[in-house]
C-alpha cells in the first residue's frame, strides 16, 4: 500500500512498522530505544511524528502502517516536540564530549545538530551517578551519560539470555548496572558497546585510543571462524606512524550476523597490526630450493578463494603436494554465531578439491624434506627437525625457518570467502598500500 510521509508517497506492506518504513526510505527519524534486532520499547519518545487525524503526536516505533496514513516529521509542532524531548535527554547529561570516546558517532551530538541548536537553560544541579565503572568483558559503563534506552538490558535479557544488565532504582535515579559483585560475562558482551547510542557503554580496549573522525573504514569479513560475520575495519595512518587497525565494527547482514559480532571475532583485529617486520628472503632463493624431490605445501584454510586458487596452481606447476587442514576447536562453537571450525574459508578449500585428509598429510610430512607453509597456524606445532621450512606469513613467525616471505593480511586484500552455510562473500582492501606484497604477486614471480 502507499502512505504519505512529508508529502511524499512511500510504498510499504501491511504489518510494517512505521519507523522501519521511514528508516528503509532514508527519512530522518531520531530514535534511541528502537533497534531493528531488539525491537521497540517506546521509552525514549524521540521518534514522535505527527499523524493526520490523531490528537497527539505518536511514536513511530509503535505505529503500524495503514491505508491513507499521512505522517509529518517537519511541522513546527513536531519540531518543537523533538527539540523539547532532546533538551530533557541532555539536561542531566554530563559535558564529557572532550573525553568521551563516542564523540563523532554519538546520537545525542547528531540529534543536537539536527533538532537542537538551542541555548541551554540548565540552572539546576545535574544528577550525579557512577562513572567509569568496569563491567568486565572490556566494557566500561558511565551511568551519567546513559539515556536509559534499555537496549543493553534487552540485549542481555532477550538475545544472549544471560541477564547481567538491568535497571536499578526508580525515576531520575534509575541507572543501568550489574548486580553488586557480578560482572558482564558472555561471549557477545561487547555488542552492547555498539548498541549503546551514546557514550554510556564504551570499549575498554578502544578507550582513549583514537578519535573516530580520523578513522577510515573498509568493508570486510571477520576471519575468526567459518561464520563469516560482516565487519567494518576501522583504521588510520598518521604522518609519523604506520597504518593501524583500531577496531572492528559490525556490518549489517540479515542472513548471517544481523548487527552482532562475538567478542573473540571483534577483538581479532589485533592480529592485523601484528605483522612481520624482519628480513624477508629473496624469491630466487626459493626457486633454487624447489629443485628437490619430496616437497610438501600446507595452506591456511583462512586464505581467500583467489589466494588458494593461486597456491593450487603454483603447487601443480612445481609438482608440490598440497594440503590444507581445518582449525577445529570443539569448545568454541555455540548455537548462535560461533562455529567449531575456526578457519574463515574451509568451504573454499573443499570447493577447490585441495586435499584435507590429515593422515595422508602426516604420511607425506614424514617423508618430506621441504615444507612450504602458506600461513597455516598449526605447522609450528609439528616436529620440524631435518626439514627445510619456507614460511609465507601474513602475521608473525614462531619458529626459525630457512626462508621467510611475508605478505599482506586480509585488511589489504580483496577476495572471496565461503562461509559455513555456503554463502559466498566479498571482502575489500583498505585504501592504504601495505608495505608487504600481496601473496598472489609473490606467487606470480615464482
Amino acid at each position, binding site marked *: 500500500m502507499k502512505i504519505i510521509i512529508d508529502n511524499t508517497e512511500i510504498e510499504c506492506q501491511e504489518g510494517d512498522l512505521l519507523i522501519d518504513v521511514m528508516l528503509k526510505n532514508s527519512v530522518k527519524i531520531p530514535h534511541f530505544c528502537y533497534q531493528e534486532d531488539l525491537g521497540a520499547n517506546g521509552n525514549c519518545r524521540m521518534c514522535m511524528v505527527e499523524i493526520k487525524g490523531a490528537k497527539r503526536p505518536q511514536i513511530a516505533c509503535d505505529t503500524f502502517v495503514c491505508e491513507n496514513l499521512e505522517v509529518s516529521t517537519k511541522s513546527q509542532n513536531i519540531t518543537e516536540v523533538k527539540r523539547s524531548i532532546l533538551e530533557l535527554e541532555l539536561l542531566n547529561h554530563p559535558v564529557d564530549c572532550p573525553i568521551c570516546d563516542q564523540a563523532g558517532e554519538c546520537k545525542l551530538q547528531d540529534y543536537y545538530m539536527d533538532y537542537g541548536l538551542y541555548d541551554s537553560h540548565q540552572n539546576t544541579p545535574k544528577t550525579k551517578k557512577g562513572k567509569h565503572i568496569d563491567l568486565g568483558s572490556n566494557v566500561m559503563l558511565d551511568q551519567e551519560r546513559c539515556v536509559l534506552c534499555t537496549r543493553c538490558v534487552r540485549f542481555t*535479557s532477550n538475545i544472549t539470555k*544471560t*541477564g*547481567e*544488565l*538491568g*535497571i*536499578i*532504582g*526508580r525515576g531520575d535515579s534509575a541507572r543501568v548496572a*550489574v*548486580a*553488586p*559483585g*557480578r560482572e558482564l560475562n558472555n561471549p557477545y558482551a561487547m555488542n552492547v558497546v555498539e548498541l549503546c547510542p551514546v557514550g554510556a557503554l564504551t570499549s575498554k580496549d578502544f578507550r582513549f585510543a583514537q578519535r573516530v573522525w580520523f578513522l577510515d573504514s573498509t568493508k570486510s569479513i571477520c576471519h575468526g571462524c567459518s561464520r563469516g560475520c560482516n565487519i567494518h575495519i576501522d583504521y588510520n595512518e598518521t604522518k609519523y606512524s604506520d597504518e593501524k587497525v583500531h577496531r572492528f565494527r559490525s556490518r549489517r547482514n540479515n542472513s548471517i550476523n544481523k548487527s552482532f559480532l562475538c567478542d573473540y571475532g571483534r577483538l581479532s583485529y589485533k592480529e592485523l597490526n601484528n605483522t612481520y617486520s624482519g628480513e624477508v628472503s629473496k624469491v630466487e632463493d626459493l626457486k633454487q630450493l624447489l629443485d628437490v624431490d619430496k616437497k610438501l605445501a600446507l595452506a591456511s584454510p583462512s586464505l581467500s578463494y583467489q589466494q588458494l586458487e593461486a597456491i593450487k596452481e603454483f603447487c601443480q606447476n612445481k609438482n608440490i603436494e598440497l594440503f590444507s587442514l581445518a582449525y577445529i576447536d570443539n569448545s568454541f562453537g555455540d548455537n548462535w554465531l560461533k562455529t567449531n571450525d575456526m578457519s574463515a574459508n574451509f568451504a573454499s578449500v573443499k570447493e577447490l578439491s585441495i586435499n584435507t585428509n590429515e593422515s595422508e598429510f602426516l604420511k607425506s610430512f614424514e617423508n618430506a624434506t621441504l615444507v612450504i607453509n602458506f600461513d597455516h597456524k598449526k605447522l609450528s606445532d609439528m616436529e620440524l627437525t631435518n626439514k627445510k621450512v619456507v614460511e609465507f606469513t601474513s602475521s608473525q613467525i614462531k619458529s626459525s625457518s630457512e626462508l621467510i616471505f611475508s605478505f599482506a593480511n586480509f585488511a589489504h586484500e580483496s577476495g572471496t570467502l565461503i562461509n559455513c552455510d555456503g554463502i559466498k562473500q566479498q571482502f575489500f582492501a583498505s585504501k592504504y598500500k601495505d608495505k608487504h606484497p600481496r601473496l598472489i604477486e609473490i606467487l606470480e614471480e615464482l
Partner: protein
Amino acid sequence: MSFSYTQENTIKVASLLNKYPQKKALVLPLLWMAQKQDSFISEDAISHISEFLNLEYMHIYSVATFYTMFKLQKPQKKLIEVCRTLSCELNGSEDIKSYLDNNYGDDYEIIEVECMGACSGAPMCTVDGKYHENLTPKSLDEVLK
C-alpha cells in the same frame, strides 16, 4: 546458600504457587517473606529466590530496588516513617519530624515518606510499620518511650 525460608514460610510458598498462573508472579510475595524473616533482603535471599523462580539474579535485584519499602541493607534501628505529603505538611508534619529528630534520633531511624493514606489523622507517622495518627509531641512520647 545460607538463606532459606522458615518451615512456616516454606508451606506458604508452596500454597502460593497454586494461586498464580506462572511462578514468576511470586517475586513480590517472596521478597516480602524474606524481608519479614530477616528484617532485610540479603544477597543470599535474592540468589535463593532467583534459583527458585528460575529467573536471573539481576531481574530479582532490579525489582527489589524499584520499590521503596524493600530494604537491601540490614537496619540497625527501628524505623519511623513520617508522612511529608501535602495534607500532613499543612497540619505540621515538619514540626513532628524536627521533634522526632531532636528527641529520638539516636534510638530510631527516622525517614520521610510520601502519602500513607492517613490524611484525616494528619500529622502521622508509622513506627515499625504500625500507623500512629493525630500526632503531638506528647502522643509521640507515649508511643515511643
